[in-house]
């Protein structure tokens, strides 16, 4: 009994120190000079541009990885092909590589002196220090989130329900949209939420390829750094609080969805255990 209490207390203390306190600090610092200053910092055109850019990058990167995750899980769960295990391993690569290296690789590939740089500049295509590079870097870094959630789920669920749908007269598209996709929906939802949170918060890789032109190629997380290093502490925390808020909204959204669909979720989980 005592051991149990000690363990619970330790877990709570750890969480407070590493999760709750930083969150409180972010908001208290952001609001330290009053609500007025807080909102002034946020409506600054450069910050507004950063918000827009962050949303745009996430809006491209998340659906890309969603589609890729669905395709990859479909391939891996339904078919046995040469290179299947290699694919599973490669999907994890972005997790094991430092994001800064990922950004650098992209510069080496698409930069002016890079492998494809000459061809790209001949055709007037700018990737590095522009939106395409930032989107590519974000896609790379957030690549595994959806796939990692969905692949094990698809493998565990197998192919039985799809076969049943065939005997009941469904065609390929009907099977995909009515059976395969819905039965993966919880995995997809978690994957998308995590992927989105990471896409909006990504710093390392994007920082290397963005060029950090304030107001043009600055995302929220890059803006936090540039504001902080130029001693605009309060504005930096105001922007940081936006990112923190995003994380909280993500959590609340997930909890709300789980609560709304608790019957079905409970049912599918119990089946898993059985």
């Amino acid at each position, binding site marked *: 009994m005592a051991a149990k209490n000690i363990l619970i207390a330790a877990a709570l203390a750890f969480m407070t120190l590493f999760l709750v306190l930083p969150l409180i600090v972010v908001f208290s610092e952001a609001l330290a000079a009053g609500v007025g200053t807080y909102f002034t910092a946020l409506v600054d055109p450069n910050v507004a541009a950063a918000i827009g850019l962050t949303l745009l990058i996430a809006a491209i990167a998340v659906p890309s990885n969603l589609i890729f995750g669905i395709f990859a899980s479909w391939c891996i769960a339904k078919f046995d092909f040469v290179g299947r295990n290699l694919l599973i391993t490669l999907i994890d690569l972005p997790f094991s590589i430092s994001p800064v290296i990922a950004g650098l690789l992209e510069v080496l590939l698409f930069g002016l002196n890079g492998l494809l740089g000459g061809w790209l500049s001949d055709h007037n295509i700018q990737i590095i220090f522009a939106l395409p590079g930032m989107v590519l870097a974000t896609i790379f870094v957030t690549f595994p989130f959806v796939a990692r959630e969905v692949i094990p789920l698809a493998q565990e*669920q197998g192919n*039985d*329900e799809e*076969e*049943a*749908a*065939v*005997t*009941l*007269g*469904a065609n390929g598209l*009907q099977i995909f949209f*009515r*059976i395969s996709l*819905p*039965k993966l*929906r919880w995995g997809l939802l978690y994957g998308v939420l995590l992927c989105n949170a990471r896409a909006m918060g990504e710093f390392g890789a994007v920082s290397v390829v963005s060029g950090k032109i304030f107001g043009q190629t600055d995302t929220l997380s890059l803006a936090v750094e540039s504001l902080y290093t130029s001693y605009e502490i309060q504005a930096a925390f105001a922007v940081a609080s936006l990112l923190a808020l995003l994380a909280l909204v993500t959590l609340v959204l997930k909890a709300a969805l789980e609560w709304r669909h608790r*019957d*079905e979720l409970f*049912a*599918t*989980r*119990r*089946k898993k255990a*059985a």
Partner: protein
Amino acid sequence: MSTEISVDGIYRHFGAHTVLDNVNLAVRPGELLALLGPSGSGKTTLLRLIAGLDNPDQGAIRFDQYNAIGRKPKERGVGFVFQHYALFRHMTVFENIAFSLRIRRAKKPEVQARVEELLKLIQLDTLADRYPAQLSGGQRQRVALARALATQPRVLLLDEPFGALDAVVRRDLRRWLRRLHEEMAITTLFVTHDQEEAFDLADRVVIMNGGRICQQGTPIEIYQTPSNAFVHEFLGESNKIPAFARDGVVQAQAGFALGRAAAEGELTAYIRPHYIVPATNPDGAWKIARIAATGAQARITVTFGDTVLESAMTADAMLAAGLQPDQNADIAITGGMLFDAQGNNPVKLLPTLATRALERVV
């Protein structure tokens, strides 16, 4: 009208492995047919070929004279019940059953009416809003059946339909399925490895082994006249006794009489436990080694030198005969089958009257 299915010269290979090896089968309209065999005998593969979930490498499958090869399950009009039900986990019971109707764009009131009708049929009308995971095994099985029946298929195919259920539920569902089949008169095939289930439920039983059909017939035909030793052994326990026949008299190699038969030379006798009837006799050459009574049934182990035979009778008969362990006894062999060394050429073993153990004849 009920559909007739004919399967002609079907071969199916998976890599170098031949799963179905020249299978020919005629399923009569409206009959309830069991495909019985050990695992790996090809019975599920055959069922999947008939359903259209897989295609044969060679051979023809016809539904009422129409070639079914290359046609989808929907076009064939089959309903399929999977071994592990394969219910759609993200749909309620109602939606599971309604699936095939919605796929066919049936009108809402029509779907509602048909699903309700089926829910009543499977006696689950109160559980329409449950998810499959919230049901018991037997309930899931019935939902799977209702789902397969929703579009009124011409042929119903069931893969190990009761495999994952406990004994009591299994028996109830079996009776229920039998009644259902009688009401609907729809051509039905089911796969099972349980001979009791096949015999209890089916009009006709097809026995498969190693990708081939060993024998087909009514349960009583197959049980009484198995075509080879595999079928005989697969259908239940038997005592296997090396024997030889001369002038119509069959004798165990170990030196006791077995009976009479129209056979000659070396044979193996297969004798079911209930065909061996021990009787106490202080001068008997047999010994009662062990008696185990399991409720209504009693099992008696008798020995003669190195020969050990298993006998079975009702516990009442055992008590009436006054059988006790360690007694001397005689045995009477009241029936059995003889097969040659390859397990073929079945010959019935005819009983002699209560048989005393004979002296070793050589």
